[in-house]
């Protein structure tokens, strides 16, 4: 897998997951008590033996760069290859609308030309998953496809699944049909926008696209030319969530309270890595009451916590009550405060006696460092 390059294509999704993306891009949204969204695809790549990963970012990437650093946590601090964070060219940034990912790729042609890898795997940065990409690459190479796309079975029944297009495949998973308009095909296979192609194919595509004005790799190339291209499809198995709304974010976090999902997501096929912090053990005081919850290190719990996820360094004071909530790093819930169906971003303080109560299908979201 030394000859495969990973590309994490971080899109702008501010409109769909507000507040949490006010100061950060989607890939660095905190998740699951101690992770950020990008950790999942990055760990999948490195666990699969990928040794070169390019992260294409567009905006608000300070926290992402801070998180990724030299790539050490994922073993990507290598002399040769390793991690590359590629912010946009200033020229494109100043344009009023985003010209599409092909433009971002085009601005880094040197980077691609210098890379020795034969194939590339391109993924969004908002996936919660743990994928064995070795198998996918082997499948791609064996099939001789121009492009391998991923798909998820029965995804149409998963609420908030971001992709709607269905595809129809032959017995050996060659794509026979790919919907241009969702809702026209029968079947249960829904497209997932993870792609494998050769670097050569990508470079040719980029150059042709610049000449003919195509902007988006999927929309303007794969979908448009689907009849001309040799496309194969590879299934996404195991736990999978693409975070594209507050509701999906909330539900994916709560899914972690299920031991089977946790076991699958965090350990199979490989462990999920993240930037580690030097937090002490979590301390439970006498009189604390914790039930069905996930807690990271460095928390101090004196109150009650039910069905919730606490990130590192959260303080829950005496008499405080937290239920069905996600509390991010270093937030503090003071004495007798009550938090239900809420998502608290980092370093939020809920003052003594204060109540923050959302609804089950509409959790309330409190922005970073707010004092309530």
């Amino acid at each position, binding site marked *: 897998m030394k000859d495969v390059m990973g590309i994490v294509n971080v899109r702008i999704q501010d409109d769909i997951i507000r507040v949490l993306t006010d100061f950060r891009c989607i890939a660095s949204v905190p998740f*699951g*008590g*101690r992770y950020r969204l990008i950790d999942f695809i990055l760990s999948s790549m490195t666990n699969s033996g990928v040794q070169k990963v390019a992260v294409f970012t567009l905006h608000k990437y300070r926290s992402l760069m801070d998180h990724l650093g030299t790539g050490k946590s994922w073993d990507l601090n290598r002399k040769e290859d390793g991690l590359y964070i590629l912010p946009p060219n200033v020229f494109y940034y100043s344009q009023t609308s985003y010209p599409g990912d092909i433009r971002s790729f085009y601005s880094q042609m040197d980077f691609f030309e210098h890379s020795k890898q034969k194939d590339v795997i391109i993924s969004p940065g908002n996936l919660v998953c743990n994928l064995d990409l070795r198998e996918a690459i082997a499948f791609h190479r064996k099939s001789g496809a121009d492009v391998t796309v991923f798909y998820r079975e029965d995804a149409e029944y998963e609420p908030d699944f971001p992709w709607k297009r269905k595809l129809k495949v032959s017995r050996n998973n060659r794509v026979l049909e790919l919907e241009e308009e969702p809702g026209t095909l029968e079947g249960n296979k829904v497209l997932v926008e993870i792609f494998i192609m050769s670097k050569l194919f990508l470079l040719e595509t980029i150059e042709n696209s610049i000449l003919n004005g195509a902007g988006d790799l999927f929309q303007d190339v794969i979908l448009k030319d689907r009849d001309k291209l040799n496309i194969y499809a590879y299934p996404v198995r195991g736990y999978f969530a693409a975070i594209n709304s507050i509701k999906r974010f909330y539900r994916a976090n709560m899914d*972690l*309270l299920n*031991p089977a999902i*946790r076991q699958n997501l*965090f350990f199979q096929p490989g*462990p*999920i*890595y*993240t930037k*580690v*912090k*030097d937090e*002490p*053990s*979590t*301390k*439970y*005081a*006498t*009189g*604390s009451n*914790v*039930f*069905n*919850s*996930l*807690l*990271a*290190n*460095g928390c*101090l719990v004196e109150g009650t*916590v039910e069905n919730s*996820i*606490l990130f590192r360094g959260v303080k829950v004071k005496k008499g405080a009550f937290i239920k069905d909530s996600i509390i991010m790093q270093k937030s503090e819930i003071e004495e007798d405060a009550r938090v239900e169906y809420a998502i608290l971003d980092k370093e939020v303080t809920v003052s003594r006696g204060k109540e923050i109560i959302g609804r089950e299908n509409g959790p309330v979201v409190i922005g970073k460092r707010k004092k309530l």
Partner: protein
Amino acid sequence: MGTTKEWIAMLLAGGEGKRLGFLTSEMAKPALPFGGKYRIIDFALSNCTNSGIDTVGVLTQYQPLILNAHIGIGIPWDLDRKHGGVSILAPFLKYGEEGKWYRGTANAIYQNICFIDKYDPHYVLVLSGDHIYKMDYSLMLKFHKEKQADLTIAVIEVPWNEASRFGIMHTDSEGRITEFQEKPAHPQGNLASMGVYIFGTEILKQYLQADNERAGSGNDFGKDVIPLMLDEGCRIFAYPFQGYWKDVGTIESLWEANLDLLSSENGLDLFDRNWRIYTVNQNQPPHFIAPGAKIENSLANEGCEIFGEVSNSVLFTGVHIGEGTVIKDSVIMTNVRIGRNARIERAIIDENAIIGDECLICSERKDPPEIILVRENMILPENSVIRTTSP
């Protein structure tokens, strides 16, 4: 700045910890796990980093494998430096001489004078990797300079009944040490040496040389070098330290030190962001407290899955506690798996042990408590009963 450092630390980490039984059969005492996620040496190393020391020589001898793997190139303590950083100093063969083990604490440093010379520091801080405490050595260095001392020894008041375990100091009104007794049978005072010394480099080298040439010397700082310096009229001062300090010598004291962390007035605040204790962090998901589980007055770490009841205990990383199991007053180390409906009280369960369903591990003696130690990697079948450590 040339290659000279103001001060460097020499950290003695070869201790065997004889009274710790199985726990130190495969690792040196400084490598002992402590406090849910640390090893004892993390305290001295973190103190160095937090005190602004960027060069530390770690002297190893006894069972160094785990210690070496833990320290690595010093990344967790920010001691991976271009000039300085952490160096493991194991005994070595010298040109034209027979190889020698380190014979005593002073001899270990003596054999590594070349390491000290490489950095040419003004002062050398000598530490022990055996102790649990948070201390700002830079304040001690300031004291050492103010007193224009040849040697400064950090001291702490210990309970009188324990004084005979330590090097006991007598001082004049200025804090200058007038008498030093190493582990006296009948202590005349309770001011104990913490094994933390600051020497002027030249005087250290001079006395290490002298000690080495003295026939019959045990080459030990406490027994030989310090008494010799006192005899010759060196300026030796006692630097009083106040706060939590523990020399974990026995299984009971290791157990006690872990449980000390549960009281909020323990004086060893591990939540202090201004004086963090660094260690190698494990990569594990957050820990899970299941519906029906109960956890009170305890520490837990990432990777734990708790389905039973835990009180007054310290759980290390990745501990699994089955439904119906009750854990009380115990220390459960990394990756231990405990089945259902077991009961464990006043015990230390060492790393990777597997305790079957319905096991009972609970000593009958409470005062003073007898602590049952279950060995690393041990597999206890269902319904096992352990009521005492004596066979």
